[in-house]
């Protein structure tokens, strides 16, 4: 198990990553953490009772250069349950780079059902083991427009100050 500590301006979130079930996704995430990619990156899209998405933008809504897109490991049996972390992506199942989200509810419809564009689902690769109260606090912040995004942007900044691999 790999332990990651995300220090945000709202508090500390500890993640336990499942390198056995999602080896490539975990290796990808760890490499972004080790590069310092997530430092200064915000949670830019939070929808209560759904998910909190981050890993893509700085607080002035600029993107950092990402690595190559990765293969989707959503068929690993891990479910998009409350407190789990999964990779965000575009309509192409194998398009995740740095953006991730934390599930705020059991989002069964995001799970893998088949190896088709609609059925691939979102690859869970770990879970929050400590600091879910911090995530809930983030989700309670009123949202609205921000940067060029018309909705769902927290109106009080939620920023990752430090991301570290603990073990």
């Amino acid at each position, binding site marked *: 198990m790999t332990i990651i500590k995300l220090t945000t301006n709202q508090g500390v979130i500890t993640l336990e990553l499942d390198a056995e079930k999602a080896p490539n996704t975990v290796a990808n995430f760890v490499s972004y953490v080790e590069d310092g990619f997530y430092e200064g990156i915000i949670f830019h899209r939070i929808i209560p009772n759904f998910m909190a998405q981050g890993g893509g933008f700085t607080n002035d809504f600029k993107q950092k250069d990402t690595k190559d897109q990765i293969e989707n490991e959503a068929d690993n049996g891990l479910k998009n349950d409350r407190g789990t972390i999964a990779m965000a992506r575009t*309509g192409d199942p194998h398009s995740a780079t740095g953006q991730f989200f934390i599930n705020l509810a059991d989002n069964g419809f995001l799970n893998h059902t088949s190896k088709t564009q609609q059925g691939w689902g979102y690859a869970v690769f770990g879970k929050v083991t400590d600091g879910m109260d911090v995530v809930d606090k983030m989700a309670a912040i009123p949202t609205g427009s921000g940067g060029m995004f*018309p*909705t769902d942007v927290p109106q009080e900044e939620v920023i990752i100050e430090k991301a570290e691999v603990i073990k």
Partner: protein
Amino acid sequence: MSKHVHFISDLHLTQDRPQTTQRFVSYLESLDANVSDLYILGDLFDTWVGDDDPTPPNQLVKDKLKSLTDNGVNVHFLAGNRDFLIGQQFFDDTQVECLEDEHIIDLFGVKTLLMHGDLLCTDDTEYQQFRQLTHNPAWQQAALAKPLEERLALAQHYRQQSHLNKQGKSSEIMDVNETTVLNTLQKYNTARLIHGHTHRPNKHIHKVGEQEAERFVLAEWDKTGSILDWTEQGYNIIELS
């Protein structure tokens, strides 16, 4: 001989799907003087971040459309939810006609309403809210004033967002709201509607008061291409492998 009028939508042309671009280019090259009009009812492109974006296949598609209009085919474009930022430069370059979101034509004597279809999906309130904001001219002006690189990054982000949503469905696969369809048919007093967007190709019959109205839903171009082909005699679906 009666001329043909073609309707297509939802090609979602992008660099990532060269076979669809190839199919579309071959189709355009195959059109001759028997086809008087080609109506493209939105989402020709998977994303459009400004007329200055040189990402393939934008220029190729523009060149092919220009050849077609040069050859006398009237090409009309109605914006979709993906390519609503197509601007004047595109229409100047291609000589394609830009249509309003709801456009009425006379199709061999029958008044026919053309739409992309996203406006009919009123159950998707999240999308309708997004649409309203992004169709605001001030928003569009601000968006298009950003550097190209930033616009491309944002488009990538939007694609991500439209997929990962609370309903677990991308806006394209939400279906139309029946009441909205009936109200729209009534508003234009039309017995025929042609649209795309939902990727659920079909022909539906609706009862509008005493009158029957038909609604044609165009197919997306995925593994094959699909064209709704009308002549004076009626319609036909052309499948392109």
